[in-house]
């Protein structure tokens, strides 16, 4: 019985011919004598037969495969895939190098640089804004621009009047002291040109704001300045007298003072 237990463990190996020569022989002899072990091996043979029942299926399926063409198909697939993988690995390699994490700050800096560059380029090459565009960008209260321009015209006129006043006073004083030649040189070189050019500028302003009285006085001053500009080094006494008479006749100095006063008052009243 003890021997049967040991032999039972070897029965599967015996059935499949896996025992060494002597052991195979021993088990075979035992099976002839032992009916219990014989029944056991018969049951195992049933399992073996059951497993063999699948052989038909296996044979049928094996026969359904085209073994002639399969090697070529597999070879093509394997080598084709290898080429594809080589290409993919090449692309992957490059992308790994390009997109490695330590390069991210570099790409970020490049991106910022490109953005700033584009912004500066746009600012530099964009077309300048038209006057209309500028006006459309800044909105003023109605009448503001006119007020500013009127104020500027008034100040320019006041400045012109003041300088003309100084000039006339200077002329009046120096001419009576017989220093005409010295005065004329300074006068011609410095102030006349300045006042003449200023008059041209304020003419437009005076016309625009319809300051007729101021314009009339300014015209008389301009006439006087022209006369003074034509004076030469040797001025005859009668000519000087004529100019003096003109100043007195027209009461230029008085008119200038009154006009100045008027302009200042109108400035205050508007403020």
């Amino acid at each position, binding site marked *: 019985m003890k021997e049967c237990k040991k032999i039972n*463990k070897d029965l*599967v*190996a015996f*059935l*499949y011919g*896996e025992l060494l020569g002597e052991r195979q022989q021993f088990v075979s002899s035992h099976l002839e004598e032992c009916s219990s072990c014989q029944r056991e091996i018969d*049951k*195992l043979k*049933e*399992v*073996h037969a*059951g*497993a063999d*029942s*699948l*052989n*038909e*299926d*296996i044979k049928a*399926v*094996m026969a*359904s*495969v085209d*073994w002639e063409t*399969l*090697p*070529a198909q*597999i*070879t093509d*697939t*394997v*080598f084709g*895939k*290898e080429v594809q993988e080589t290409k993919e690995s090449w692309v992957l390699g490059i992308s790994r190098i390009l997109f490695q994490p330590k390069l991210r700050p570099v790409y970020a800096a490049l991106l910022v640089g490109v953005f700033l560059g584009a912004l500066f380029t746009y600012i530099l090459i964009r077309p300048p804004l038209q006057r209309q565009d500028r006006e459309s960008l800044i909105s003023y209260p109605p009448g503001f621009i006119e007020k500013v321009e009127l104020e500027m015209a008034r100040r320019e006129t006041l400045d012109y009047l003041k300088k003309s006043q100084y000039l006339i006073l200077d002329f009046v004083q120096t001419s009576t002291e017989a220093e005409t030649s010295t005065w004329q040189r300074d006068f011609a070189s410095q102030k006349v040109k300045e006042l003449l050019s200023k008059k041209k500028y304020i003419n437009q302003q005076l016309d625009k704001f319809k300051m007729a009285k101021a314009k009339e006085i300014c015209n008389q001053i301009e006439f006087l300045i022209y006369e003074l500009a034509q004076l030469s080094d040797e001025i005859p006494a009668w000519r000087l007298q004529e100019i003096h008479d003109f100043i007195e006749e027209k009461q230029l100095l008085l008119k200038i003072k009154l006009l100045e006063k008027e302009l200042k008052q109108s400035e205050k009243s508007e403020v």
Partner: protein
Amino acid sequence: MQGRTSEEKGDVFTLLERIKNDDREAFRELVSLYQKRIFLLAFSFFHNREDAMDIVQETFMRLHQKIHTFREGENFKSWIFQVAKNLCIDHYRKNHSKRKEWGGEQNLEEMNLPSENSDNSHQSLDLKMIFSRCLEKLAERQRMVFVLKHYNQLKYREIAEVLNISPGTVKSLHFKAVQNLRGFISPYLGRVQ
């Protein structure tokens, strides 16, 4: 027989050397030599033609990828069977749970067993089905040992190399596999025979 095996080994090593140099023809020859054995292993394990074909293709792909790891002196047959076995196990584990979810595994009790009036062809068909189901019920390693032994007719020593276990363990696993199959199949044997 011994002479033929040595000659075959020599051929295989020559082929392997050529394959290492990207020789397509050598690869094709190697596939011709081993395709049926791999298919037999896979089909007897899965009992499904498509699964078996996938395993054959995948085995040779893996072989091509790992050809440089094969060293002269190793048993190529065991090596390639090992690759195929690993793929079978992976495939089985990946798809086994799915089949269970889909109800693909039919219990033996639910199967259409033959009536007493059935003819022999039907009986034979059902014995195949019963045995096929019984085989599926075996544990992974027992099933692999049984398949390698019964259908691929490998020696215990060769199975041990493929599974990387001792021949004694192979013998023990084979014994348990057959005993379990006997336990599974015995209630139905009287009804189909």
